[in-house]
């Protein structure tokens, strides 16, 4: 584990050091780089649910929305009351609160998922994401359908990438621990796993809660990066985006998923001049990918063709 820890510290130090020079970057480029950090957190956390544990969640954007709105509301209410020096503390607290509430939502989805698998689970998670969107759309305290404006810009490159490093470290360490082998066992064969004394229910719920927590953190970062939240930003398509990152990288392959998150964040920017064809290309990419390399772009030696 010391190796992983070293990577974690290296990642955070690098993020902080680069962050010092972030004023040198072009604003547009800086924005995209922060997007990459946020998407890495989303993809790696979904990978714990969809990849390592072999569940199929289509509601990751819902968790992100819970975290984003909670964090944004907290900093909107609290930050005017406290001196600016405390700003990083407020931000950290807001992010953790957002993550915590998202984790609670994850528990809410995890429990019905105990009895469901495959397509049924996919539908329930999809439905859950939609329910969150509808609820937010009708909550006047967070701006309802017109969105939440004027969120302070707290997210920096350092924050985004330090937290991305923490997410990668946490998920990797969790899955590679003795306890975490159970996730892979559940993904490979639930019945066999439970006959070996592994409780699939506990693992599934743990995966959902942990994944949701980090999605909530990513939502908080996103809110303080874009400074504006709208319920339509967290629709079904956003969940699909994250799912595609996980598939492109290869289910259960952390490195691949990180690379895929980077590529798929850059892709729309590269295709900007063909913006009218962008989504057509994107959907074709999904189909072609599924036909040619369902195990992910960066997987060469996995023992079986993707998690079923």
């Amino acid at each position: 584990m010391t190796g992983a820890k070293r990577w974690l510290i290296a990642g955070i130090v690098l993020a902080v050091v680069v962050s010092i020079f972030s004023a040198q970057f072009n604003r547009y480029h800086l924005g995209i780089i922060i997007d990459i950090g946020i998407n890495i957190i989303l993809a790696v956390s979904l990978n714990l649910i969809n990849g390592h544990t072999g569940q199929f969640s289509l509601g990751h954007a819902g968790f992100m929305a819970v975290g984003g709105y909670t964090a944004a509301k907290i900093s909107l209410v609290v930050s005017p009351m406290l001196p600016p020096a405390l700003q990083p503390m407020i931000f950290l607290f807001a992010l953790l609160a957002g993550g915590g509430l998202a984790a609670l939502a994850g528990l809410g989805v995890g429990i019905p998922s105990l009895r469901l698998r495959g397509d049924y689970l996919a539908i329930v998670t999809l439905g859950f994401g939609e329910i969150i969107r509808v609820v937010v759309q009708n909550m006047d305290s967070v701006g309802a359908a017109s969105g939440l404006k004027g969120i302070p810009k707290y997210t920096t490159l350092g924050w985004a990438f330090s937290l991305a490093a923490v997410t990668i470290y946490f998920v990797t360490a969790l899955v590679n621990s003795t306890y975490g082998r159970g996730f892979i066992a559940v993904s490979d064969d639930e019945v066999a796993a439970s006959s070996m004394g592994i409780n699939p229910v506990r693992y599934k719920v743990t995966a959902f809660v942990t994944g949701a927590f980090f999605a909530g953190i990513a939502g908080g970062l996103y809110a303080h990066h874009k400074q504006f939240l709208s319920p339509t930003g967290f629709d079904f398509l956003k969940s699909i985006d994250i799912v595609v990152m996980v598939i492109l990288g290869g289910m259960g392959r952390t490195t691949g998923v990180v690379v895929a998150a980077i590529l798929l964040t850059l892709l729309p920017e590269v295709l900007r001049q063909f913006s009218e064809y962008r989504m057509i290309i994107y959907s074709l990419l999904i189909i072609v990918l599924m036909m040619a390399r369902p195990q992910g772009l960066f997987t060469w030696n996995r023992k079986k063709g993707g998690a079923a």
Partner: protein
Amino acid sequence: MDWLLQQLINGLALGSIYALIALGYTMVYGVLRFINFAHADVLMLGAYAAYFLAPAVNSIFPLPSLTGTLIIVLLSAMICAAIGILIEILAYRPLRQRPRLTVLITAIGVSLFIEFTCQHKAVFGADTKPFPQLLPEHDFHLGGLVIGSNDLVVVVTTLLLLGGMWFIVQRTKMGTAMRAVSFNQQAAALMGININRIISFTFGLGSALAAVAGILYALKAPGIDPLMGVQPGLRAFIAAVLGGIGNLPGAALGGLLLGLLETFAGGISGLSNYRDGIAFAILILILLFKPAGLLGKATIEKV
């Protein structure tokens, strides 16, 4: 009392459309065990087929008229059946032996592809187009109740098609083969059933139903656009799962139930904003207690 009856009528009309769409989902699930996300977009294509056919048919059989509408519906259903079969051959057939999740994600890809292609200005464009009036419209007043002729058409058409589907699946050779394939694909193949033909037939039938549902939906909607299939598709899909996916009467029951619940919830002022969420909330509640849906059989995994 009048309010209740009125909501009941509206709910039945809405639920009938959901039931028609849900049938397509459930039939495909029956033979291939995956949710065909592109089904909702075939519905949209059906409405667009009718939109483009209407002026041509109008010159021979002036609209609004029953004959003209029947011709339009038949032609649209045939076009959509062809599209459905084509989608299966191009996108799903190469993946027949792959894990179901791969196929599910491909289906999402196909759905997005159709939606975004149709939104492109060279195809249909993203704007809403007014749907032509196909049938003469008349409101029947029964005491305090108002029954639109379109609502009646929707309910009657659905009942006829449900009956027809039941006949095809239960009483014809093709239907028997469909049931055999859904029961055990390998055994069916060993009995001399051409699996590919049955699957194509199922897709064609489901897509034709989607086309009819799309036209019925468009009759009641203010206009058509490339994303018009998404919301009814999602509901129908919930309806299919609600009734027990793979189960034909279940899909019809789920569709009607969902249509009624949604209309009643929409009629209550505090709840109407949450309409989109209510369908899913009901689904989750029911799956908590009956994971295989209302009429679905719980399967036991053998080790």
